[in-house]
């Protein structure tokens, strides 16, 4: 499995990432993708994203490895942005390539669900009036990850 994990301030191009995956061989029949965007909740101006360098990459690598064990994947790309991101900006990209669509889409869900609960990123909401508020973790994210029973990458 080809794995590409990046934590970066810059935005990303799906076309470039998909071309990269498609160029790795002609066994890829389907690519599942998830793109997270900064949602403009209640007058939000921007999100500031912080992470734990080192641990972030190793946790994402573990999640992706687990996805590779569980699903028949040919490649997986995860790009997560950090820094200040305005409303509407892309935050995260998960791409999973497989011979067949089932594995590609399921693995995409698996990776983003675990990333939400296991990768050490924190979001701060910045408002136009200068107020800032750290986002609280959502129980629904824990529940979403728990659906993938026995797949907890932190226990790998």
């Amino acid at each position, binding site marked *: 499995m080809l794995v590409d994990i990046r934590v970066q301030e810059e935005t990303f191009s799906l076309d470039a990432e998909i071309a990269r995956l498609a160029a790795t061989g002609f066994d890829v029949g389907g690519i599942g993708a998830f793109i997270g965007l900064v949602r403009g909740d209640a007058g939000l101006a921007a999100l500031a994203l912080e992470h*734990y360098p080192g*641990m972030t990459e190793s946790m994402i690598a573990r999640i992706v490895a687990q996805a590779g064990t569980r699903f028949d994947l040919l490649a997986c790309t995860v790009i997560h942005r950090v820094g200040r991101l305005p409303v509407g900006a892309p935050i995260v990209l998960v791409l999973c390539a497989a011979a067949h669509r089932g594995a590609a889409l399921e693995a995409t869900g698996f990776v983003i669900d675990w990333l*939400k609960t296991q990768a*050490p*990123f924190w979001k701060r909401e910045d408002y136009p009036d200068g107020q800032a508020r750290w986002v*609280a*973790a959502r129980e629904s*994210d824990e529940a979403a990850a728990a659906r993938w029973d026995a797949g907890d990458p*932190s226990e790998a």
Partner: protein
Amino acid sequence: MVEILYFAWLRDRLGRSRETFVLPRDGGLSVRDIMDGLRRRGAAYEEIFAEGGGPIRCAVNQEFAALDSPVRAGDELAFFPPVTGG
């Protein structure tokens, strides 16, 4: 010596992102023991490590850890809120 890291609102509250903690000669401390030691450094520590002060998580050497996980000299111990990426 243990390197201690703080992230997100814990760092904001303390006004620092890292500091060191000297282990006693006889070693054998857990994460909880170190939290207790840090609490003596001031009110802001009392606040972030307070029961009900908000849920916090920790990692030892960049692996999620529990309060009773052992911490050894040279380890990196991080405290942070539950993660909210993605």
